[in-house]
């Protein structure tokens, strides 16, 4: 091996994916006039580090990193397997694209717009830290970092709606993380360790563990906006600046979901979770119904997309009732693939909506048809992203739903077929409501503000990516299997 190769192998990329963006954030904060350029550079370094780390995992399997050289339970460990790698990769894909979009979106910088860069880089770092940490208290700190950065990004829009949305989001987010933290206190009091792996070996169906599980699940469900705890999401996601809406819907809610999934797989006692799993699955079904219905009733484009997020998040919870069946791995594979496909498609939609908003100056759907003819690329973006959201082949949305269907057949949980298939029809309903606008012939077409090409092409790129991801699904599932994150339940052992 050459020295360059050795250096590449020995560099702890697992550290760089967190502290690359933090360093970028500090420099962007110190030098606000160059924030945008520095932000791009930091994004490049971060995405590069993620790719190298993921490649390492794909090649050599899962990795544990002892920070400070102290092993758990005394120290904090990082752990990366296929699941964390897939989350890192999703974040890097969306993050890199949104960074490009944001350079154009925030081009006419005001003094406050420049804060986008340090805030976004800190958010990225915090999410990466969350995907890597194996320590439940350290995870609390990352949750707070993610929450505070996300709230500040929403408020950047500065409008009355954005400030109110951000305020509600902050209060709910703090309620969620504090509830989670109380669960951590109980777990530590009971077992004297904070390490996910060690806790998993010690947790029993005792009252304290049961309460700790309940609190942590509740806290994370609030943060993930599962129906009926979703009320804070649409106003915040809709009122934020377009790149921020994309980041929130595509990534931030998935971060707390990832944590829930990780703890569910490794910590929470299998014996206490089946009933809870059924409940969560039922709430997921209600989320799909209620979110779709609300999306259909919205009169503003960004709110419609935000309610679609509420509905689509419901799908992530359908696998929980299957968690203790032999079909669990298939169901979880479908869930994670769904995260990836929804992230890409929803980013495309929010970015396209941002373009429409920028061009026409509002997003009231009744009046949208007027300006629609001037923005063919954006409607194409919308249409292609809709294919993935509805779940038609060859999109990754289709593959994800197909896996969920397979799992529900295999485990005999037939009732799940209805929401999985029906949700697609509902999505088709509200998506066609948007797309029909594009085909309304309207003579009073006004040429809106010109929008930078970069903004249109990034949005389209994400839509095409969501479509193409269907072909890449096997490689994603292959990466996901590194370290066998879903094998922790002995098949059929609990039933």
């Amino acid at each position, binding site marked *: 091996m050459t020295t360059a190769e050795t250096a590449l192998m020995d560099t702890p990329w697992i550290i760089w994916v967190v502290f690359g963006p933090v360093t970028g954030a500090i420099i962007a904060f110190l030098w606000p006039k160059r924030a945008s350029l520095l932000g791009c550079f930091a994004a490049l370094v971060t995405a590069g580090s993620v790719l190298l780390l993921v490649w390492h995992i794909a090649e050599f399997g899962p990795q544990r990193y002892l920070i400070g050289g102290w092993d758990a339970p005394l120290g904090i460990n990082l752990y990366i397997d296929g699941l964390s790698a897939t989350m890192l990769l999703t974040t890097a894909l969306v993050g890199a694209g949104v960074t490009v979009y944001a350079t154009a979106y925030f081009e006419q910088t005001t003094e406050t717009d420049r804060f986008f860069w340090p805030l976004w880089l800190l958010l990225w770092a915090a999410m990466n830290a969350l995907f890597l940490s194996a320590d439940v208290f350290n995870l609390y700190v990352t949750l707070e970092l993610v929450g505070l950065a996300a*709230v500040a990004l929403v408020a950047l829009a500065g409008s*009355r709606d954005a400030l109110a949305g951000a*305020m509600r989001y902050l209060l709910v987010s703090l309620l969620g993380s504090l509830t989670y933290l109380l669960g951590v*206190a*109980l777990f*530590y*009091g009971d077992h*004297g360790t904070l390490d996910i792996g060690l806790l998993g070996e010690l947790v029993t169906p005792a009252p304290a563990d049961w309460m700790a599980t309940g609190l942590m699940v509740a806290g994370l469900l609030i943060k993930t906006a599962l129906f009926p705890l979703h009320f804070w999401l649409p106003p915040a996601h809709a009122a934020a600046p377009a790149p921020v809406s994309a980041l929130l819907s595509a990534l931030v809610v998935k971060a707390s979901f990832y944590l829930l999934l990780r703890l569910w797989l490794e910590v929470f006692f299998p014996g206490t979770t089946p009933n809870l799993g059924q409940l969560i699955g039922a709430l997921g079904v209600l989320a799909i119904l209620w979110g779709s219905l609300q999306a259909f009733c919205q009169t503003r484009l960004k709110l419609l997309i935000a309610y679609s997020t509420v509905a689509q998040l419901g799908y992530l919870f359908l696998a929980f009732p299957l968690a203790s069946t032999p079909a669990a791995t298939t169901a979880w594979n479908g869930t994670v693939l769904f995260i990836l496909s929804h992230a890409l498609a929803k980013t495309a939609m929010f970015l396209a909506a941002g373009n429409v908003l920028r061009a026409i100056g509002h997003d009231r759907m009744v009046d949208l048809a007027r300006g629609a003819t001037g923005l063919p690329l954006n409607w194409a973006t919308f249409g292609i992203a809709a294919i993935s959201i509805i779940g038609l082949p060859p999109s990754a949305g289709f593959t994800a739903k197909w896996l969920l269907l397979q799992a529900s057949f295999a485990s005999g949980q037939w009732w799940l077929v209805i929401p999985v298939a029906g949700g697609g029809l509902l999505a088709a309903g509200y998506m066609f409501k948007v797309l029909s606008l594009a085909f309304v012939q309207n003579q009073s077409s006004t040429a809106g503000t010109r929008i930078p090409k970069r903004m249109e092409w990034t949005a389209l790129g994400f839509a095409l990516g969501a479509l193409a991801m269907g072909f890449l699904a096997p490689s994603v599932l292959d990466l996901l299997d590194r370290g066998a994150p879903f094998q922790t339940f002995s098949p059929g052992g609990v039933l």
Partner: protein
Amino acid sequence: MTPAILYAITGIGLFVLGVHALTRRAHLLNKIIALNIMGSGIFLVFGALAYRTPNGVSDPVPHAMVITGIVVAISATAVALTLMLRLQSKTGAAELPEQSPE
């Protein structure tokens, strides 16, 4: 009852009182104070359970976590207060506007 359990239950009491005020009080300053009381309650649970060591010297790990928690709490409080003031200057009230009916 040992002092550890006594204080831990007190902590739970603070948490529950805080949740109640968070949902009941309309003024944002009240809500932010309520979140701080909830946090203090959780820290007390950490500290009380750390007091159960057999040799009488408390477990230092929860103490470190509580110090971290206190700093996180003041950071979040400061952001929340700034946001509250900004909202007031925009809407005229330090309360959340009625959410449009779903």
